[in-house]
């Protein structure tokens, strides 16, 4: 008898998902999950896992059934994420499934939905996010990449920066200026661009850990068909903002934090047994455990509350802030747990597909890279200061 995952009781649901995930997760995929040093894990592993999920209809559990999602209630979606995290499944990237998908569902034309959504799920299209520009970071509304309407095309000129994974992507969703007005409210449009269109150039940026995650993207007289606009011309700002709420809020930070906490505890209790550093970290870990638990309740509550709650957008700022800052605290603890071994640059130690020997002292090898990469977590998606501004304005009405 086949169990209906949408209606069965929650403990049956959890057991089913557990057996599915553990049955399909190879050891290198699991390594990739464990060794991941930022929100992006090893690209190859991530795509491999997305394919497996997709062939089982689970690439986007939170999407409605009509678009290829699972149509589960919020509780089930969280259980699904908890199970994936607890078994160290690679995290899928958010740009397509979590950010653009919901936007197309709300603002896209029927043609956009039917053409693009399936390609996001299958991984055929890999999207990147073209919001930030060299002179428009926190002040996103001042962006200056221009799109001029010429017949059936927009001609795009300008550049984007910090575009995560653009070097792996074939498509980019961009905010572009389509009118002269200063106010972003009626001068910005949301445009979908093929990265292989003539005039587009992607240049990688080397991050502190030596890897490439971000890129610059340059547009010189790039011709984009007018039907690639999402929403009305000059009305892209509200599309942009609603996407940001998905970026910040949709993530359930507690899930990853719980797992990270577990792994650190496991590391210090089994590997570093009797060690003075492990002893001292106990109190700090206890302290963070309480914070993570409170975030768990907060995020579960938000997930369940009605879509119509106007504060949800601002609450996504709150969870983003707490989630990222707690993650940074955990990174600091794992840093001290590595002792002076922190000095060595990690190479094959971080490659999930590496099959040679792994040394005892390379347990928790991701600690230093996580620490430096996650310094960015309070910068991307809107800095911690901007989130505090939003809380002050939208929640406290200051």
């Amino acid at each position, binding site marked *: 008898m086949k169990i209906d995952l949408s209606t069965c009781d929650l403990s049956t649901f959890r057991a089913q998902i557990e057996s599915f995930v553990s049955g399909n997760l190879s050891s290198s995929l699991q390594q990739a999950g464990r060794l991941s040093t930022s929100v992006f894990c090893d690209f190859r592993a991530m795509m491999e896992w997305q394919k497996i999920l997709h062939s089982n209809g689970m690439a986007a559990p939170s999407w409605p059934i009509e678009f290829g999602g699972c149509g589960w209630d919020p509780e089930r979606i969280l259980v699904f994420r908890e199970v994936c995290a607890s078994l160290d499944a690679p995290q899928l990237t958010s740009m397509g499934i979590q950010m653009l998908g919901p936007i197309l569902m709300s603002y896209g034309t029927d043609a956009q939905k039917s053409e693009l959504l399936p390609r996001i799920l299958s991984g055929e299209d890999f999207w990147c996010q073209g919001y930030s520009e060299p002179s428009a970071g926190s*002040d996103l509304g*001042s962006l200056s990449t221009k799109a001029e309407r010429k017949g059936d095309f927009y001609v795009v000129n300008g550049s984007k*920066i910090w575009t995560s994974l653009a070097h792996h992507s074939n498509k980019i969703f961009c905010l572009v200026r389509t009118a002269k007005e200063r106010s972003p409210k009626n001068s910005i449009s949301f445009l979908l661009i093929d990265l292989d269109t003539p005039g587009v150039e992607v240049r990688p940026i*080397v991050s502190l850990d030596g890897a490439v995650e971000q890129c610059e993207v340059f547009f010189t007289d790039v011709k984009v068909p007018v039907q690639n606009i999402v929403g009305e011309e000059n009305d892209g700002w509200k599309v942009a903002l609603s996407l940001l709420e998905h970026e910040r809020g949709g993530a359930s930070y507690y899930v990853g934090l719980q797992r990270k906490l577990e792994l650190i505890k496991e590391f210090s209790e089994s590997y570093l047994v009797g*060690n003075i*550093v492990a002893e001292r970290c106990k109190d700090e870990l206890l302290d963070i455990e309480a914070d993570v638990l409170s975030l768990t309740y907060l995020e579960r509550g938000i997930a369940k509350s009605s879509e119509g709650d106007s504060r949800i957008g601002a609450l996504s700022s709150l969870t983003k802030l707490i989630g990222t800052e707690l993650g940074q605290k955990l990174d600091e603890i794992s840093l001290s747990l590595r002792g002076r071994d922190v*000095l060595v640059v990690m190479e094959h130690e971080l490659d999930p597909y590496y099959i040679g020997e792994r040394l005892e002292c390379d347990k928790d090898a991701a600690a230093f890279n996580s620490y430096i990469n996650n310094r960015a977590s*309070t*910068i991307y998606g809107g800095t911690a200061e901007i989130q505090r501004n939003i809380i002050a304005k939208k929640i406290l009405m200051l």
Partner: protein
Amino acid sequence: MNSEERDLLFESVNKYLTHSYNYFDFRLDGRASSESVMKMYKETCDLGWSAFLFSEEVGGFGGAAVDIADLFHKFGSHRVVTPYLESQITAGAILSGIGGKGSAVLGELMAGNITLCVLGSSDRYSDSGAIVLDLDNLGDLVCDYGAVPWAPVVDKLLLFASNKGENTLLLVDRQSSFVSVERRIGVDGSLVGRVTINGLRRESCEILAEGSAVSDIVKIASLKTSIALCAEAVGAMESLLRQTVEYTKTRKQFGQPISSFQVLQHMMANMFIAQTTSSEMLKGIASEISTDSDYLAYEREIMLLKHKINKESKLVRHSAVQCHGGIATTDELMIGHYLKRLVVIDNYFGGPHVDMNRINREAA
């Protein structure tokens, strides 16, 4: 050395570091090779930087704690990649403490002809423990030291051992057959070796010192190393603050320099407080230490200084990244490279918790 000569020396240090040194040309995780770092090491020893770190009694012309602090402050603010700390400070302190048998090696060290590093306990959370062995019955002693800065290029290793219960300092060739060094790049642009000793042989080690004096010699070396590390951290913190203030005055968002935002002003004010209190504490303590026995007398103060600097450097480096926004997370700006080095400084003796534990255990 009188104060005029001292000023002259620092003028030349400044000149050298400003004109002939640039982190990006020397970091080993970039284009540079260890030869260029070693060339600079030799060149600067010839300029007298090394002799400045030692007292007249052992053939130098400086050697007070302020001398060490002032030079390493410069190393910190210019993010200098060099084995000075391991070789000149830690190994140098031990050799000068030993006197007698150590003097010949020390002479070579000061001349920049050789480099050394010290191997203490193999525990990655400890700095002062000795490996336990019996020189008359070595068996197949295996000792895995983990990450040791500069081990792949040093000429000699100084082993701190406990031989049948007695503290002993042994001198060993790095190229001996029983020493294996896996060459790796350090996160701070340095060169690191993962060192293993396997099958040490009696006839291959020279006993430089043994007996009750050894533990004080080793302790003094670790306290001198702490002073140098703290000074380097203070120099790095100073550069971070200066560069952050400059950047926020030029970076514009919302039509104004980001330095006009109150949050950032507060962050930078906190950085200033952190940096200034650290630097004053360092200067104060260093100025009261001139002889080796002063180090022992100031053990607790030095360890408290290290603790204070671990804490404040975290605030400074994190705020510097935060105030810069995305640009600080790239490899191109110095901000992240100071950050990386400061982490290494935190963890030098095993990490902030170890430093704290030492205060409770050894200097209570």
